[in-house]
């Protein structure tokens, strides 16, 4: 004898709602008041906090880049050229140092940074952009000399 209708009586049980709420409360543990303990309020607060985290992740990178640019600019001005002159001439010379690295060099390796500045000054004089300084800084060897 086969009880066919018994199969239809077997229905998936409702999943325990605790787990769904737990996923939200894990992220709202440090919130204020009802945002911490009440599901409806916590749900909205958690989603807002995740949106903010996504926005800030991009902003953190751009803030760090802005700080590096400011540091490079102030270090290059100590040697007499602004940031834009340094970066554009480095691109032309195919020196592929990125901004965080340049900022670290400016702080911890000042003589290396000065030599980079000298290379950029020489490039701008050889290209005819810098018409004020006729003589390039000493100890810079360029392709035309060799």
């Amino acid at each position, binding site marked *: 004898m086969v009880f066919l209708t018994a199969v239809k009586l077997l229905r998936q049980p409702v999943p325990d709602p605790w787990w769904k709420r737990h996923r939200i409360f894990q992220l709202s543990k440090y919130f204020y008041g009802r945002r911490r303990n009440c599901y409806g309020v916590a749900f909205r607060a958690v989603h807002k906090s995740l949106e903010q985290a996504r926005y800030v992740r991009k902003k953190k990178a751009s803030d760090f880049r802005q*700080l590096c640019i400011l*540091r*490079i600019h*102030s*270090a290059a*001005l*100590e040697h007499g050229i602004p940031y834009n002159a340094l970066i554009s001439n480095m691109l032309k010379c195919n020196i592929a140092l990125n901004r965080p690295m340049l900022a670290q060099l*400016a*702080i911890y390796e000042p003589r290396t940074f000065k030599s980079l500045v000298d290379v950029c000054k020489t490039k701008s004089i050889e290209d005819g952009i810098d018409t004020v300084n006729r003589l390039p800084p000493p100890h810079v060897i360029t392709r035309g000399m060799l």
Partner: protein
Amino acid sequence: MSNARVKQWAQFARFWWLFDAKWQHPKGIAEKVKLYLMGKHKPIYHPFSDCGDQVVIINTRHVAMKGDEWFRKKFRHHTGYPRGFSEWPAWVVQDQDPTKVVWKYIYHSIPQKPQRSTIIERLHLFPDEEVPPDIMKNVAAQMRQLRPVPKTLSEYTNEEIDNFPRLFEWPDEYIIKPDRPVSIKAA
């Protein structure tokens, strides 16, 4: 014993700068001096690290503005109460307090943030060249001026005037017409 500690102290020490404001525009002064006050002239700058320097500005009585800007530039103030608005041309403020104009330009050029009050505390303004000795003994270096200060005709000696190269000499009978008087529109 390594001297890394001494190097650290020397790197992060607060520096005292001197700036001569004679015949400079207060806006140009503000743009230059605010960088030194905030520490943005240093490669180690960070907004949290309080790396700004002290700046002493002398000769604020002798700052210069262009044409009739002393009459056109107005400083506004509102007390917060009704009928509390007042507007003063720059020359009135300069007469009342010779350091106030430069101070206002510098204060408003620094971004409005919690550190602004500490940053502006490190600015010292003096109307003439007299600086108290306890401030002057801290001053270590002078900042370059923005505009070159030309020599007035009275500062040239007679010999220099006579020996200055001329293209031609006016004949003795020639009468040189006086220049038109400058018209200044008073506020």
